[in-house]
């Protein structure tokens, strides 16, 4: 038992600090893309990572051409891969290449890259180094834009032909930023955003990489930060910086999973829990006042699970037990010494609860044992893009939140690890959370925990437009 506890604690501690699991070792990752049910990202030097679920990563992706810092986008039924021929050279001569593939699966018979095409160069004298490309298909116009450059001079934008991947005829580069690396363009709600990496890389735990952003109404800029500075003046609002023992995030890429669910792919220059190696990171994107900022990978702990609909807390459907402390007469003189009132404890109430399955409901949060949920990484290696599945039990018990075949919720006396007891937790773009069972028994539907009524939890299709689908985790 002691051994098991140690192993369990080790897993706990390990998972709370890792960006991803498996062998997520990569530098300068391309934006994560999905291809035929798998996730891919390519890195510097050729090759890259593959994941079946978005949580566990391993090598195996194939990209010819060497060089550095690629990016990938799916256009129609093809993938356009862009990369720099160098990783930055002392001469600052560089080339950006594009090439196509019908699939990213190296085992597919369709896997074949087209001949690379030159779309940008730096001659070694101009104030630009043609590496670190980031690509965006403008959702409003269908035009294809590519940003590139490093700390050496300017970050530039060019337009490509989305049918050929070639430089659009007559297009000239536009300078949009200085002191940036690994720029990427994204679009949202009438704004173009230029996300770029500031700081220094490639120095392990001493790397100061961080991702900043400016925005513009025009794709060609000027990109202005939150205090009015142009990125041509070095401006930029912080998106993500070092987090705990994960040092120096850089090379932002945006992944839109569905409305309200977005992730960023990055690398950390050094994961201090993995020999200081450069690792892939995936974090939620939260949009706050029109600016993107990195959300949080869900942290294990004990929480109130609060419905956004009403602000009530998820609770066990058991009889409310009054606390002994009762109000005294208001307004009367009371000179008794002030002292804390102890919490109602699990032992005070659990004897009154049924032993078998117990329903759940949503009620006024009163900081009572039937309202506190302990959420930990499930002893299961599977996950989803950016996170593992979680086990949700009532604090101090093994009573586990479980999805039922009729799309309802119950708690069962013991956690078994069955998939209907595994929960996916995504931070949404507004900062709230979506909670989904790994499966709903006998169903192929992807359902999420919702508030069917103020006091009634259920499972239903996720709707970002409705607060019924959203939850917060409160620490009290």
């Amino acid at each position: 038992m002691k051994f098991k506890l140690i192993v369990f604690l080790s897993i706990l501690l390990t998972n709370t600090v890792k960006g991803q699991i498996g062998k997520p070792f990569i530098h300068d990752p391309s934006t994560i893309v999905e291809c035929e049910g798998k996730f891919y990202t390519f890195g510097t030097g050729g090759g890259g990572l593959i994941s079946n679920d978005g949580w566990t990563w391993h090598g195996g992706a194939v990209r010819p051409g060497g060089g550095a810092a690629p990016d990938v986008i799916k256009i129609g039924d093809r993938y356009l891969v862009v990369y720099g021929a160098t990783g930055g050279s002392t001469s600052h001569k560089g080339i950006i290449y594009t090439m196509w593939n019908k699939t990213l699966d190296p085992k597919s018979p369709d896997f074949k890259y087209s001949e690379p095409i030159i779309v940008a160069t730096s001659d070694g004298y101009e104030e630009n180094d043609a590496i670190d490309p980031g690509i965006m298909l403008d959702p409003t116009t269908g035009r294809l834009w590519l940003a590139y450059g490093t700390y050496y001079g300017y970050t530039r934008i060019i337009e490509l032909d989305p049918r050929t991947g070639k430089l659009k005829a007559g297009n000239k580069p536009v300078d949009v930023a200085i002191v940036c690396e690994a720029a990427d363009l994204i679009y949202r709600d009438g704004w173009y955003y230029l996300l770029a990496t500031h700081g220094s890389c490639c120095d392990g735990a001493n790397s100061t990489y961080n991702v900043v952003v400016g925005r513009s109404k025009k794709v060609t800029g000027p990109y202005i930060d939150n205090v009015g500075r142009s990125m041509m003046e070095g401006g930029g609002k912080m998106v993500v910086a070092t987090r705990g023992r994960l040092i120096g995030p850089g090379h932002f890429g945006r992944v839109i999973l569905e409305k309200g669910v977005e992730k960023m792919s990055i690398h950390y220059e050094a994961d201090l829990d993995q020999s200081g190696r450069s690792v892939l990171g995936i974090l939620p994107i939260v949009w706050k006042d029109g600016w993107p900022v990195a959300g949080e990978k869900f942290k294990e702990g004990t929480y109130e699970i609060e419905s956004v609909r009403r602000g009530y807390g998820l609770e066990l459907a058991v009889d409310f037990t009054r606390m002994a402390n009762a109000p005294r007469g208001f307004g009367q003189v009371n000179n008794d010494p002030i002292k804390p009132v102890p919490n109602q404890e699990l032992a005070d109430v659990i004897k009154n609860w049924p032993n078998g399955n117990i329903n759940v409901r949503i009620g006024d949060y009163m900081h009572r044992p039937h309202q506190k949920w302990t959420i930990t990484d499930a002893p299961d290696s599977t996950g989803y893009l950016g996170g593992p599945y979680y086990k949700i039990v009532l604090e101090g018990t093994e009573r586990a939140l479980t999805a039922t075949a009729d799309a309802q919720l119950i708690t069962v006396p013991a956690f078994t690890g069955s998939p209907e007891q595994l929960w996916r937790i995504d931070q949404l773009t507004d900062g709230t959370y979506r909670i989904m069972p790994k499966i709903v028994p006998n169903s192929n539907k992807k359902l999420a925990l919702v508030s069917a009524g103020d006091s009634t939890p259920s499972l239903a299709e996720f709707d970002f437009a409705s607060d019924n689908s959203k939850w917060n985790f409160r620490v009290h």
Partner: protein
Amino acid sequence: MNKIRKSLHPVLAFFTLFSLQFFVNTATGQPPGFQRPPLPPIPIKGDTTHTLSRHFSTATNTKIAPYTNGFVHRWLVLEPIKKDIARNNIFTDNYLRNTFQTDNFLDNYLVVPKDGEMVKVGNQDLKWYGLDSKTFNFNLFNFSYDINKPKYGLLFWLVTVIDCPEEIQNVRMTAGCNSGGMFWLNGKEVLMLSGDRDMIVDNVASPLLTLKKGKNIIRGAVINGPGMANFCLRFIDEKGKPVKSISISKN
């Protein structure tokens, strides 16, 4: 990704071809033994001559207004002092103070050198240039290239004179530089930019200070190892608005 080059350039220069390839592969994540294919010819796109007029104008004896948004773009700049610097994160406060004290051309921070004057720092004979930058920032990397000096591992001394028609109270001197630097106003230290910084407008701001009526002398020093040495400087008021009611001269 390119900053590994910024970081390692001076070191790599001393190694053999083999060890250079080894370090590049290690630093950029290239697999061991990886041979980067040679680049095809890349046409030169512009003027590559060592010519100051590409980036600067010669400072005249006539005062000028600051650049758009108040940037001080006229400076007397001394030819760079060569330094062996492998990484810019060595630029701690102590390092900068010690280095700028040691590799100084003159301890009197109220002296304004003359355009074209020669001074000695260590065993190097160095010349002062009076220049107006054609951009809001003063790109020292370009300056060094333009006068056909080394591009990396350099310390630059700077002096300029701010003329105020009236005393201006409650302003801040702000600067950004790549990578480390210090600035003094009328002989007093007002800005310290330590660490591996990028040139970012208003990156560091002084406490509120007063620009006196008449001449105010700014002394600056910027140091950089690998990367593009660069700086910008201006004054802002209490609300962060640029101070434009000043003029700049070189004497």
